[in-house]
C-alpha cells in the first residue's frame, strides 16, 4: 500500500464516519482534476490556456466516437461544477471553478449544447450553468 492509497484510506474512513454525500462531489472533483478534465474548451481557466493551445483540439475534430468521448468528459466536468456550485450556494463555500466571463467561454458552451452529438440533457445543463453564473454575479453585488 503506497502513500496515495494510505491517504485515500485515511480520508475514506473519515468521510464514512461523517456519512455526508457532499464528500462524493468533493471526491469526484478531485478525481476529475487529477484526470485534467478541467482542461477543456468551455471552462477556460487561466492556468489551462497554455495547455489548451498546446493540445490544439477543436470542437469539430476527430470522428464521431472521439467527439462523443470528448463531450462525455466535458459533460462530466460541467456536472461536477454545477453540483459543487449548487452545494456552495447552500454552504457559502467558494467553488474551485469560477463562472465569470473570463473563466467560462459562454458562446462555446452554447455551441456545445447545440451540437448534433448533444444528448437531451445538455441544453438543460447549459441552462443551469447560466443560472448559476447569474446568481453568482447578482450575489456578488449584494454580499460584498
Amino acid at each position, binding site marked *: 500500500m503506497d502513500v*496515495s*492509497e494510505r491517504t*485515500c*484510506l485515511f*480520508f*475514506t474512513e473519515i*468521510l*464514512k464516519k461523517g*456519512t*455526508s*454525500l*457532499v464528500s*462524493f*462531489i468533493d*471526491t*469526484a472533483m478531485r*478525481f*476529475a482534476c*487529477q*484526470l*485534467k*478534465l478541467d482542461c477543456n474548451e468551455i471552462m477556460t481557466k487561466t492556468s489551462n490556456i497554455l495547455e489548451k493551445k498546446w493540445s490544439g483540439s477543436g470542437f469539430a475534430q476527430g470522428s464521431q*466516437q472521439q467527439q*462523443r*468521448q470528448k*463531450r*462525455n*468528459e466535458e*459533460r*462530466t466536468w460541467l*456536472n*461536477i461544477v454545477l*453540483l459543487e456550485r449548487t452545494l456552495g450556494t447552500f454552504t457559502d463555500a467558494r467553488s474551485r471553478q469560477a463562472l465569470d466571463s473570463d473563466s467560462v467561454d459562454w458562446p462555446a458552451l452554447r455551441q456545445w449544447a447545440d451540437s448534433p*452529438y448533444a*444528448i*437531451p*440533457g*445538455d441544453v*438543460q*445543463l447549459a441552462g443551469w450553468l447560466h443560472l448559476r453564473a447569474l446568481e453568482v454575479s447578482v450575489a456578488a453585488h449584494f454580499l460584498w
Partner: protein
Amino acid sequence: MQLPAEQDRFVADHDPVVSSSSEAQGPSPPRLGHSVGPVAFEEGLDDNPLVSIQRAARRHHHQEEDGDEDEDEEGRGAQEGRISDGRKGSDASVRLSASAQESHTQGSTTVEPLLLHQIRETHAQWGWTSADLHAFRQECLRYIGTSATDRIREPASLRALDPIEGGLLSEADARALFDIFFSTINNQTAILDDQIHTWDTVRKQSLVLFLTVLSTAAAVTQEGGQRSRWAGAASILSSDAEEACWLSIRGNVRSVEAIQALLLSYLFPPKSVTSNADNSWM
C-alpha cells in the same frame, strides 16, 4: 567496507572503465577519468542504476577538479592526474598509466572519488545485490512512468459485487433496468451518453458505474403505482453500489466512469428507513 563479491563482479561487468582496465592490465585498480558526455543521464536510463550513479559521481568529481586545476597546475599529485587524464591528453595518459602501475605495485587500494566510495559503501551496508538494484530501477521507472493523469482501473475485488454473476439479477432484468435508466433518468440528469455508454462498454469498463445505474433504476422504478419486481433487489443493489463507490475511492480509481458513478450516487442516494437516517440533504 568490503563489497560483496557478486556486486563487485556486477560492477566490473557493467562499467566500461573497469572492464577495459581489467582486460588490459589484469587486476589493476579501476581507472577513473572516463569522459562522461552531457547525455550521460539518458544513457543511464538504459544501464544499471549503479553505473548511472557512478557516472554521476565521476561527473561531480570532475567539476570539483576543474576548480582546483587552475590554482595548482604543477603541484598536482598522482591521484589527481589519474582522475583528469580524460581531458588532459596523451601526457596525462602517460602519467596515469605510470601512476597506476606505481599504485598497483605499491599495493594501494582503489582510487575512488569520495562520493562514489560512499555510495558503494552504503549499498554494501544495505546488502543490495544486482537483482535488488535492478528491481529498484524498475520500481523507479514505474513510479515515474505513472503520472497523475493516468487512469487507474478498478481493482479486481470489485468483481465480487457483480449482480449478475452473484445471482442477484438475471441478465434480462439487468438489461431492462439499464434501458429504464437511459430512457427516463438519464434524460434529466445528463450524465451519460447512451451512444457510448452501451450495455457492453459499461459492464466491461466499470462495474461501479454499472452497479450505480442498476441501483438507481431499481430504486425509482414503479409499475402502475405498485412496487416493481425489482424492489427486493433494490436495497441490495443500493448498498452494493455504495460499497463499490467507497471501494473505488479507497482504491484510488481514476476514471471518468468512477466520477460519473459518484455523481449518480450523490443525486440518487439510498432511501432511508427513518427520517433521522436520511442524509440526502447533507
